[in-house]
């Protein structure tokens, strides 16, 4: 009896010891490992996306917005159909709209691409296509393919297509694969627009239901801020339509048009052609992405005369009635002979006549009176040789040669806008000094920065006084005469208070000027007594006629006609 009890006790003891040993094994020896495994099961973390900020026109309409898109992925172990079959079903949906003649090739390539992804070894999850639309997602869902899933993504929408493309830029991918803005506003304001993603970490049960009393940590996403611009959608659309048809009509290689408020620097519209669609930027050549209105330089030609004359008036070197005593014929400068554009000479021209006739010889006279040092100082005061500071990514400025390098030839040719380079935005800003009573401003595209709970107005920035108000008024009256009685007088809209100047500049090629190719420009503002806008139109290599008076000027007036109506600018009589 005692033996049986003892055996029972020993057996019980052994069982208990085994239990203790197993408990030690699972709780202590394997404890850490199992704790981590358990934690991985019930602890989940996910990124909270920060929606990108929107870009709005001055009336609040969208220029760029964030829309819905989907990432299509495949969970390879869950697929029931063959990869070939799935690839053939998905490829036509991923392809979208393509040329019919390339369709078969593109479709075949797409099928091969998808099939290769689905047959990848060593992976359980593969992304198949980024940024598909809701319509495509619904079509794929209707196919009922097992193992194909979707993750929500953000897609940038540009509802006005290529309109304002150069102002907006586009959202592409960085080297790390994240969405990043390039060029224009998307690039300049990238940090502010992109916001900051958040993170949510919490415990959940086997069914994925959150455990309320469990560990949870959340960092809220900070959405990108919205930008409200000065861009007027109607003006922008008008500029785009007219520039495109103008380039076709005058068979120009390219062109730009800028409309600005001269008093505040607000950019109301800016167009460059050829352009691209930021929605499908990958289909276009890289050359089209940079905005020629802010990054391409050109020799301005005769429009530059208004700056030189304004400087000369302001410095007292000349007055409106000063007589040009060298204007009876060509003038010799060093080994060169400077002639007028039409070989017509007007002896005893006043400074008004010099501007009206766009007299190169007269401008040489002015530059000599002004002097090299003073000339150079005024150019820098007009903001030339430096970037304007406009809030668009990609602005460039051609350097201004040091004044010590200026000889008599450089001084002479610069006086009529050759041998010196500017960008369109630099030029229009300089002319806006005349329209703005002599003060220089910084051009601005963005008017307000808007968030859900606050908004900040971006105030206009007046830099400094370049010329006196009186000089600005005198120069304005000369430009009015140039518009009414100059070479573009035939296209001038009667009765409207326009101050303007044409410019036809030869294009330098390999150390000399091309005989045939020109850059035709017209710059002007209206109404001259209280300017509502300053506008500059540039056509590169118009082949219907090389002259600005026959190309850029009529195009300018065609655009201005709509602007007069829009701003309520009435004719004088």
């Amino acid at each position, binding site marked *: 009896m005692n033996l049986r009890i003892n055996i029972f006790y020993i057996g019980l003891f052994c069982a208990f010891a085994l239990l203790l040993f197993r408990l030690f094994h699972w709780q202590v020896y394997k404890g850490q490992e199992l704790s981590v495994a358990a934690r991985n099961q019930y602890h989940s973390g996910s990124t909270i996306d920060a929606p990108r900020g929107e870009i709005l026109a001055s009336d609040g*309409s*969208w220029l760029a*917005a964030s*829309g*819905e898109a989907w990432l299509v992925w495949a969970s390879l172990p869950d697929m029931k159909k063959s990869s070939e079959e799935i690839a053939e079903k998905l490829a036509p949906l991923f392809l979208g709209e393509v040329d019919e003649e390339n369709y078969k090739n593109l479709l075949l390539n797409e099928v091969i691409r998808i099939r290769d992804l689905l047959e990848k070894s060593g992976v359980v999850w593969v992304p198949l296509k980024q940024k598909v639309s*809701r319509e495509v997602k619904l079509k794929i869902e209707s196919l009922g393919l097992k193992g194909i899933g979707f993750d929500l993504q953000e897609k940038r*929408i540009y*509802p*006005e*297509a290529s*309109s304002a493309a150069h102002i907006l830029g586009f959202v592409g991918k960085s080297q790390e694969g994240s969405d990043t803005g390039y060029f224009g506003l998307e690039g300049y304001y990238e940090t502010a627009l992109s916001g900051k993603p958040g993170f949510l970490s919490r415990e*959940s*049960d086997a069914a*994925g*239901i*959150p*455990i*309320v*009393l469990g560990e949870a940590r959340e960092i809220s996403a900070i959405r990108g801020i919205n930008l409200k611009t000065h861009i007027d*959608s*109607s003006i922008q*659309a008008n500029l785009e339509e007219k520039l495109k048809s103008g380039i076709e009509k005058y068979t120009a290689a390219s062109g730009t048009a800028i409309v600005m408020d001269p008093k505040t620097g607000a950019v109301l519209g800016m167009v460059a052609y050829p352009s691209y669609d930021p929605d499908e930027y990958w289909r276009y050549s890289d050359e089209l992405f940079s905005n020629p209105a802010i990054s391409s330089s050109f020799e301005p030609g005769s429009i530059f005369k208004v700056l030189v004359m304004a400087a000369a008036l302001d410095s007292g070197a000349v007055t409106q009635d000063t007589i040009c005593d060298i204007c009876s014929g060509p003038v010799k400068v060093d080994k060169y002979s400077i002639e007028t554009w039409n070989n017509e000479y007007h002896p005893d021209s006043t400074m008004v006549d010099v501007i009206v006739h766009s007299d190169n010889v007269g401008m040489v006279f002015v530059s000599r009176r002004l002097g090299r040092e003073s000339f150079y100082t005024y150019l820098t005061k007009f903001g030339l040789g430096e970037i304007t500071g406009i809030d668009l990514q990609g602005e460039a400025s051609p350097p201004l040669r040091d004044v010590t390098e200026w000889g008599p030839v450089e001084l002479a040719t610069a006086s009529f806008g050759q041998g010196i380079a500017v960008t369109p935005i630099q030029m229009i800003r300089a002319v806006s000094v005349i329209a703005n009573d002599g003060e220089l401003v910084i051009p601005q595209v963005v008017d307000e920065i808007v968030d859900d709970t606050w908004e900040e107005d971006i105030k206009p920035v007046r830099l400094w006084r370049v010329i006196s108000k009186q000089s600005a008024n005198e120069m304005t009256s000369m430009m009015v005469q140039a518009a009414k009685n100059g070479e573009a007088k035939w296209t001038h809209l009667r*009765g409207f208070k326009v101050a303007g100047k044409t410019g036809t500049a030869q294009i330098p090629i390999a150390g000399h000027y091309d005989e045939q190719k020109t850059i035709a420009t017209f710059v002007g503002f209206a109404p001259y007594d209280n300017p509502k806008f300053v506008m500059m139109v540039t056509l590169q290599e118009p082949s219907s006629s090389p002259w600005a008076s026959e190309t850029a000027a009529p195009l300018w007036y065609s655009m201005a*006609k709509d602007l007069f*109506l829009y701003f309520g600018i*009435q*004719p004088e009589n």
Partner: protein
Amino acid sequence: MKYARKKDTVKKQVRFKKKHLLWIYFAAFISIQVFFTIHTATAGAELANLEEKAGELSEEKRILEDTLVSKSSLKSLEEKAQKLRLSKNENVVYFQPEQTFAKAD
């Protein structure tokens, strides 16, 4: 003797009440524990439901925003205007306020 018997009975009654009270406390504690466990579990399910609803509303908002953005664009308005055969006026007549003009009814 009678007193000693009565004292014993009272002691037994007191001991009896303490034992039962202990069980009552214990039962109450377990019940409350179970109640809150169920409550937090259902709160978790409710949270999951609310998150699902929030997701559906977000999706609806996205669809509406997408529609609003595309329909209100100048490009789509231009297309609609063309379909409706509306065209831009080409001729603009300016007149002085003093001038008389005929007005169509």
